[in-house]
């Protein structure tokens, strides 16, 4: 693993990212803007499931509007995150915060995808399941909060 990471860090592409001083901060700025998109879109859906915000709006309409932002946002996060890792290969992959962050991301993406898929086939499903809806919302909010927190703490371990 160390040998592979060392090799990645010495590829011409990685060296280009490292030597252009504006590259890494710009990639990270885009990463943060994408965090804003994804975190807010997920929070809007979760707050609706909790009945706190948009309580009058129909859930399928909100999912239809905000779920694509989560999907495209996560893709943008993956691309910018991957570029970061190519530039600094030893920083993230072996870091425990990073590994936990990826695990939480996989779980929350599966949950969100499952919700969106179910809403598509049975639009009224979650309106009739307030308790499950609330549990899902709290789980989703907690996972996203952990992902953002872990992302910041990678820099400190």
């Amino acid at each position, binding site marked *: 693993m160390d040998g592979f990471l060392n090799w990645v860090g010495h590829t011409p592409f990685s060296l280009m990212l490292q030597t252009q001083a504006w590259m*890494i*901060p*710009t990639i*990270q*700025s885009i990463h*943060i*803007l994408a*965090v*804003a*998109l994804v*975190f*807010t*879109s997920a*929070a*809007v859906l979760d707050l609706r499931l909790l009945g706190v*915000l*948009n309580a009058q709006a129909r859930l399928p*309409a909100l999912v239809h*509007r905000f779920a694509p932002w989560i999907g495209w946002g996560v893709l943008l996060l993956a691309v910018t995150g991957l570029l970061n890792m190519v530039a600094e290969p030893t920083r993230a992959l072996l870091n425990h915060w990073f590994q936990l962050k990826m695990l939480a991301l996989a779980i929350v993406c599966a949950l969100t995808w499952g919700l969106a898929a179910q809403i598509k086939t049975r639009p009224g499903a979650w309106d009739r399941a307030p308790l499950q809806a609330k549990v899902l919302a709290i789980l989703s909010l907690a996972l996203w*909060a952990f992902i*953002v*927190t872990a992302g*910041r*703490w990678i*820099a*400190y371990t």
Partner: protein
Amino acid sequence: MALHDLSVALQDSALGQTIGGSAWLFPTLETIHLFCLTTVLGSIAIVDLRLLGLAGGGEPASVVLRRYTPFTWWAFLGAAISGGLLFVSRAGAYTDLPVFYMKLGYMALAALNMAYFHFFIEPTVAAWDRGPPATAARIAGGLSLLFWASVVVCARQVGFHM
């Protein structure tokens, strides 16, 4: 230089020393700052995209404004407090960075844009609440997105120079 002396005094204060000397306070404040700034960006983007006529057209602009701007305000308050505490701990270094002043500059532009919108454009909302947004509202929405994104780009640069 007076500003530099003042910022060094801030940094040497009991509060500055406590935050700067702790292993976990600075990253914890950074994490809180990150949550607040992403909420500011995300909630204002929902409003701006509606003002631009690009998303959320199913609801009146006035409803979108009323529903999401309170999140922007509370998150901004949180970002200002957490950011202020981060600043105090390393005030001497921040005030030496040109990009830190650029960040404040973009925040001032965003504030001016918001004030202009609030006092001169929002009162006319009844005329474009459901149809295509007025040109002035589109410009305000576009500028808001541009200024806030610039704040984030500058903020990331600030972190890099610490």
